[in-house]
């Protein structure tokens, strides 16, 4: 696809002198629906952030008082810290493996039309569609059949399966926007396949890979359905720990942990936006 899919310039108000009632009504309805949707999308994040600063022991909105006591309490929450650490290690490994395995596959999928590669494409995308919980359970049975027990490396492999589609999608999108003439030029100048890849292709698709890696990292860090079966009490990960706390306890520390996660996510998103142009890669 050579035509640049630039942002479509906003169509100026209809050329007719006064916008018709119809045009106006369409804009109004869509504008209101979109505004509602945006409030709906952002409100929960704001609510949890505000609630986490409550001074009381109960989770009510609006929160009473303002304090950082629950954030301070996180410093003592060694079990939550251990779970967060596990999640971080798993997510980092998952991201590295997703990128290492996903990038070559994306190149093949973007460049080749062979039926084998088409079939692979469908296979690699299927974890996005099939119920992840069923896959998590299947993986647990499989591991038991092999005579193993779930541990962190196996959990990483499970996460790689469900997180790879993110890297594939963004990388393929970046590859399809690549000018083939650039690659031809490089080859005609005598550069080898590998050199062309390293010097031309990779720098050009790096932002796509970066965005995919970011999404894979977040997806792994946040994964519940696979971890539910492949992580146990000895390898507790953060989302499962938080889920347990929320379901079982009235613990405002959970709100503070949530607030922290929200803040970190926002920071990471801004970084991803600055370095990899996240929102452009996701279109």
């Amino acid at each position, binding site marked *: 696809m050579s035509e640049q*899919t630039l*942002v*479509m*310039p*906003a*169509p100026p108000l*209809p050329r007719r002198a006064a916008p018709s009632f119809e*045009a106006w*009504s*369409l804009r109004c309805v*869509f504008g209101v*629906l*979109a505004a509602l949707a945006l409030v*709906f*999308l*952002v409100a*929960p*994040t704001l609510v*949890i952030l505000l609630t986490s600063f409550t001074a009381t022991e109960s989770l009510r909105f609006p929160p009473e008082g303002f304090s950082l006591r629950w954030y301070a309490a996180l410093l003592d929450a060694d079990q939550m810290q251990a779970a967060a650490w596990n999640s971080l290690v798993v997510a980092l490994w998952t991201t590295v493996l997703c990128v290492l*395995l996903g990038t070559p*596959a994306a190149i*093949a*999928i973007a*460049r080749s039309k062979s039926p084998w*590669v088409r079939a692979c494409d469908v*296979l*690699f995308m299927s*974890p996005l*569609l099939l*119920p992840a*919980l*069923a*896959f998590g*359970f*299947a993986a647990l*049975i*499989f591991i038991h059949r092999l005579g193993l027990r779930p541990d962190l490396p196996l959990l990483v*492999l499970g996460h*790689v*399966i469900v997180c790879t589609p993110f890297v594939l999608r963004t990388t393929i999108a970046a590859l399809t926007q690549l000018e083939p003439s650039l690659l031809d030029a490089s080859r005609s100048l005598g550069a080898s396949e590998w050199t062309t890849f390293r010097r031309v292709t990779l720098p050009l698709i790096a932002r796509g890979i970066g965005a995919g890696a970011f*999404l894979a990292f*977040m997806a792994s860090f946040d994964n*519940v*359905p696979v971890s*539910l079966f492949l992580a146990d009490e000895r390898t507790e990960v*953060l*989302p499962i720990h*938080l*889920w347990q706390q*929320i379901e079982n306890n009235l613990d405002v520390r*959970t709100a503070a942990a949530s607030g922290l996660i929200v803040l970190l*996510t*926002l920071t990471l*998103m801004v970084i991803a*936006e600055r370095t990899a142009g*996240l*929102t*452009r890669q*996701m*279109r």
Partner: protein
Amino acid sequence: MAAPRAPLTLPLTALFAAGFVAPLCVLLMLSLAAGDDGSAGLTLAQYARFLGDRFNLSVLGSTLLLGAEATLVCLLFGFPVAWVCARAGARWQSVLIFLVVLPILTSVVVRTFSWIVILGRQGLLNQILLGLGLIDAPLKLLYSEAGVVLVLAQVQMPLMVLPILTVLSRLDPNLADASRALGAGEWRTLWRVTLPLVMPGIIAGCILSFAASITAFVTQTLIGGARLLYLPLFIYQQAVGANDWPFAAAVSVVFMIAVLLVVVLLNGFGRRYEKHV
């Protein structure tokens, strides 16, 4: 093509063969196994047990229905968001996409947690509605299907907005202009020109948000409570609570087939539509 590309897929294919296809095959075998280790041959008994029971079928039905409802709400709100997004300038577009993507990147547990605070009987939403005089008594949102649909729609909205936006922003604006020039009104143009052209994006969005909604274990259990039983919790209960792996495996297989059927159906609908256009 200077070099064959297919071998580049091999490492990932190997991982998927060992880590994805093989477990699913084992799952299938277990669901068909007669006797504890499957030595006694194959049987459909577990499937008969699931499909022959109205209660179980109603769980399957309500799960698919839940997915459909959440998808529709996603579409109702997601399409306008994508529409506004496509018309916004580059800077605003980035901001909007940022806001749309924000929820899907915030931990699902955290997001659901926040909804508990919002949806409770004395929660934020009821306070607002009561304050505005729109209702007389607090609505029951937490532990209700409406609540689950609402939260799922919020959680999965990005999956609907992004594919639609992709198609919308590649659309040739001349087509809509031509339609208007021919005297068709805005709504008519939207309905007869834009919507059909965006259909592939809508179908993709529907498939993604449907698939994500029906398997959203955390949201379903935390917002739905015990009386609203959906397949993911059902499978979890059978597998972990009751330790009945063969039955849980059969339910998982039925679940996957049901999802695949819906995906294929939607896909087929999209194909027919494309031909039609």
